[in-house]
């Protein structure tokens, strides 16, 4: 028990929590925007993969780090365009299309990787984002270490604030919340249901891809095939856990990251060594299922989520 307390009060633990939460926050915000507009985006897992790959490859090819972020976002938006074209005006099954987009994006990343690096056995490293020195803040005891984070982490948290501001304080956010609840209400005001939903999916997919790029540009400095490893699906659970609200979703991501960071550290304790490490690795997925069960009764699902809108139908 003391071991756990020691972990929980250490600054390095909280630094890890914030780092682990960052890509989850970015991708969760992306999924949240899509779902608030009424589209479930199961392309998230693949879009994170393509974001991780594209950002890393762009930097490897000589672009600056922020250039890599931009390339990742563009790649994600491209797959968002594909997803939303099929699910919004054509109203195809969001389940099937989402999985198709995940398969296509994942295999595109693998194909492009092998094409561009046919010979390599271990992927080359890039120079990733370094922790930002914030004057004043970084010199504080404990807090300075916990908040020793890269610019992309700061951007992730800023992005969550921006998404919340957009949703609740701007006419655009009002329209996005309305189109996920009752598209006919939006149509009746002369706004384009198709435009809003496609825009939301494309923008959301861009954020998911940046979440993926965080892994290669800020966390690991290199690209591996299995590196996203279900994080996308976990983000879908986080959106439900956060009841489709940005603030709660961020808290969910932090809570989740705390468990993840804790399990990594617990593995190194005597207790952890006695248990199979696979149990610790499975913990995030088990937690996600538990979160879904916990929230099942009270979640306020957008009423038109997964319901395609065809204005000819009455």
């Amino acid at each position, binding site marked *: 028990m003391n071991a756990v307390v020691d972990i929980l009060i250490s600054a390095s633990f909280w630094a890890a929590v914030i780092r682990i939460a960052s890509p989850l926050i970015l991708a969760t915000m992306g999924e949240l925007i899509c779902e608030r507009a009424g589209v479930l985006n199961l392309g998230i897992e693949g879009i994170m993969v393509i974001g991780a790959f594209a950002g890393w490859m762009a930097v490897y090819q000589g672009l600056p780090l922020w250039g890599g972020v931009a390339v990742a976002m563009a790649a994600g938006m491209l797959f968002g365009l594909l997803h939303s074209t099929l699910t919004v005006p054509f109203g195809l099954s969001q389940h099937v299309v989402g999985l198709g987009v995940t398969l296509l994006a994942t295999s595109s990343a693998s194909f492009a990787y092998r094409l561009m690096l046919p010979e390599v056995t271990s992927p080359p490293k890039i120079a990733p984002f370094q922790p930002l020195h914030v004057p004043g803040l970084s010199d504080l005891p404990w807090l300075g270490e916990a908040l020793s984070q890269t610019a992309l982490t700061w951007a992730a948290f800023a992005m969550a604030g921006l998404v919340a501001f957009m949703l609740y304080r701007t006419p655009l956010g009002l329209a996005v919340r309305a189109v996920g*609840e009752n598209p006919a209400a939006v149509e009746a005001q002369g706004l384009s249901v198709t435009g809003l939903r496609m825009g939301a999916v494309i923008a959301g997919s861009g954020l998911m891809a940046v979440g993926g790029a965080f892994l290669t540009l800020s966390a690991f400095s290199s690209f591996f095939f299995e590196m996203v490893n279900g994080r996308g699906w976990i983000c879908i659970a986080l959106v439900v856990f956060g009841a489709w609200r940005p603030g709660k979703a961020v808290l969910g991501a932090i809570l989740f990251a705390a468990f993840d960071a804790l399990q990594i550290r617990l593995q190194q304790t005597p207790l952890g060594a006695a248990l199979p490490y696979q149990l610790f690795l499975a913990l995030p997925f088990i937690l996600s299922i538990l979160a879904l069960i916990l929230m099942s009764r009270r979640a306020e699902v957008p009423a038109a989520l997964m319901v395609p809108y065809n204005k000819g139908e009455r």
Partner: protein
Amino acid sequence: MSEGKGAEVVLRLDRITKRFGALTANDAVSLTLRRGEVVALLGENGAGKTTLMNILFGHYVADEGSVEAFGQPLPPGNPRAALQAGVGMVHQHFTLAGNLTVLENIRLGTEGLWSRGHGGARAKVERLSRDFGLAVHPDAKVGRLSVGERQRVEILKALYRDARILILDEPTAVLTPQESEALFATLRKATALGLSVIFISHKLHEVMAIADRCVVLRHGRVVGEVDTHATDKGALAALMVGGELSLPRAEARAPGAVLMKLDSVSTPDRGAAPGLKKVTLDLRAGQITGLAGVSGNGQAALAEIIGGLALPAEGTILLKNAPVTGWSPGEALARGVARIPEDRHHQGSIADFDLTENAVLEAYRSRFSRRGWMNWRAAREFAETIIAGYDVRCPGPETRIRLLSGGNMQKLILGRAMAGGPETGGPEIILANQPVRGLDVGAIAYVQSQLIAARDRGSSVLLISEDLDEIMGLSDVIHVMSQGRLSPGFARGTMTAAELGLWMAGQKFGDRDAA
């Protein structure tokens, strides 16, 4: 309230034609609206009223003809154009988002999407709601409002956009007679302030009460345009249906034994929809029991209880004096309860199934299979019997049901229901929930005559309808539902529409349920 013939023309629809495949929904329809005037657009379901309004609002593009508002032509196919020209519409199915507040719903679409939005919205809404007598709290979540309140939000939405022309599509369908009066008062205030109104309806007495002028549509054509004070209900009705109305009327009969009894049944409220409040109801053999009421007052909950889809939270259901056990849709069917559902598209049929599959949907286990194996030959023969016996117009039993018209779909559902019951001696209890909604006159007469025939064979029919004329024409005994409470039964001919209206508004229910 009218400023007379001389007032300026604010809206002009000129020879609008719209075709859907072989169907001509609007055939050279012209209509003018003047300042301060209420024009009723009258017509049956399917006469082309909704299509015309969809063209005005740019949801459809007309094949021919043009639209002019305040002297300026409206570009076709642009939903914003009509709004910007000052035309506001209150749809029959409200276009509100339940997760947003009243104020948010009103502001939606009025500010540039990429702008910061602007202040002053709240003050304007409060002023409008005072001026027009539309009381509603700006910060209330729309999902929690009553139907009448939601309609007020819709009207406020149009007024907030500075609409000078208000179009109301069947606005009273969801209101009590008393709430309708309040709406009419609002409309009179509006016209006095120089607004103009198009009032879409098929209820003649309302049209007579509120409209200055009346345009009658039939089969997509304008068949008459008359001043309301120069005509009467009979003449309008004749114009509307193109002949004398000859809907069946049931003659009184002596009631038989109680087949089904609900004893003090209650169900929980569901959101804004009230549950049942200690409802006691006898359904007797050889009797049509009419259930009147504004939609959303607990009729759905009652229909679910009788049809087996829900169980009472309190109270009991008795069939022939014995409490039911294991109540479910299957059990209800087995015990002789036939159901004609309110929503034939979503509850009554499976769109991509053919007529055979839809015909055996309720009885595939008991009559068209053995030990889990389907007997498709018998199923097909059964479908053919219904098609022949109930005059279902279709290419054959392998037609997918979504290709059928509403009337033919309803006839198949009716045939399926009438063939059910224990050992197929026919159903003992028939739950007919809005059985003629959306049907044409011929199909209405057919369905209603079948219900009367079933009663004459000794079945007990529960007819749920929002149409008071239908209830009063067919029922041997009438109950009224309001806020989940059930009125006593009134024998045929003992109550006027106005008296029933007071029950519908809940004013006649005593204090006994107030707590």
